[in-house]
């Protein structure tokens, strides 16, 4: 019997559950390897060659090369692991978060200063569902 995943109807959100951890095992372990300076250097010198050392799918590798964080997460990446990639790039959590929302960093930073993204309209993929639950 399939397990209930009530979080699948949260908009704009990928929950890193055991299934995602299975799919994303190698992309996350690759990202984790960037904790070490010598690995960061090798990755920066030739990203493609470094990625090819990991048994990741071509899609996962391309998402890393493109720094497409939403794509990486849809392919099993978890944000705390992926943070090692944008840290290697010298970029902040706020910068990375902004790219995931399609906003510029100043726009995103202003949204946070204004109190953050409102929960209103952001809790259910289909707002009509709100009545049912």
């Amino acid at each position, binding site marked *: 019997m399939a397990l209930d995943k009530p*979080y699948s109807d949260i908009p704009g959100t990928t929950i890193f*559950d055991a299934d995602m951890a299975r799919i994303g095992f190698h992309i996350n372990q690759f990202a984790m390897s960037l904790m070490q300076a010598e690995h960061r250097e090798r990755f920066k010198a030739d990203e493609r060659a470094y990625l090819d050392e990991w048994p990741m799918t071509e899609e996962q590798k391309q998402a890393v090369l493109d720094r497409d964080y939403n794509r990486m997460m849809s392919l099993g990446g978890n944000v705390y692991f992926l943070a090692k990639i944008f840290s290697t790039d010298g970029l902040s959590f706020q910068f990375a978060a902004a790219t995931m929302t399609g906003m510029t960093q100043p726009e995103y930073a202003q*949204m946070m200063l204004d109190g953050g993204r409102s929960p209103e309209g952001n809790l259910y993929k289909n707002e009509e569902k709100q009545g049912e639950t």
Partner: protein
Amino acid sequence: MAKITAGVSTSHVPAIGAALDNGKANEEYWKPVFAGYDFSKQWIKEQKPDVIILVYNDHATAFSLDLIPTFALGCGEKYKSADEGWGPRPVPDVYCHQELASHIAQSVITDNFDLTIVNTMDVDHGLTVPLSLMFGETNAWPCKVIPLAVNVVLYPPPSGQRCYDLGKALRKAVESFDEDLNVQVWGTGGMSHQLQGPRAGLINKEFDNDFLDKLVNDPEAQARVPHIDYVREAGSEGVELVMWLIMRGALNDEVTEKHRFYHVPASNTAVGHLILENK
């Protein structure tokens, strides 16, 4: 006898640590965040805890996907500040109260909580930022710290109820330890925040304040709140808040709220902080 006298909960936003370490604490952006801890710094100087059981989570620092313990109790001699990719935070090593830690392990596991024991690991911002917020800059932390790492990275984390009950088992363990010790339990992480996906930046003040009220006054009800409510309402990373229930479970049913602070934003996150004393 050892005794749990108080609980502290606080967010552990990495940017707070970076602001402190890079001398930005007096900037307009950060001033109101640190001001929320002025009372706390004074309070803890007077309290002089001997040991803090510090509940936090590792953020893909000590634990990769190689090994993901749900509850990991630090029983080793000392723990260093981790290099999270931009060099370790320049803070002192954390020294464990090993006798109390091993006593807790024996007691709590006997009480049906299957803890993992960690003797060797580095500790990340989840543990060091709360220490910095409460003790400020120092060459040595003024007390022993027993790390209790909770998995909240891989879903599902332990349930709120399980966390609350673990707090009760911790209390029983501490109170059966012979040495006279003033012990505090800290719960860290939260409050509402989402660091990922198109919904990144979610902040839910209503949820957060309701959580604070319930945690203080009706923790049994808060313990029953399912994960889906946290991830939907407080963001995918807001589920860290279940760790505060371990702190609350370790205290009396009735507590005195000595201090409360809530502020938005610190980087991507709502900052919350409570000091609760046993009545």
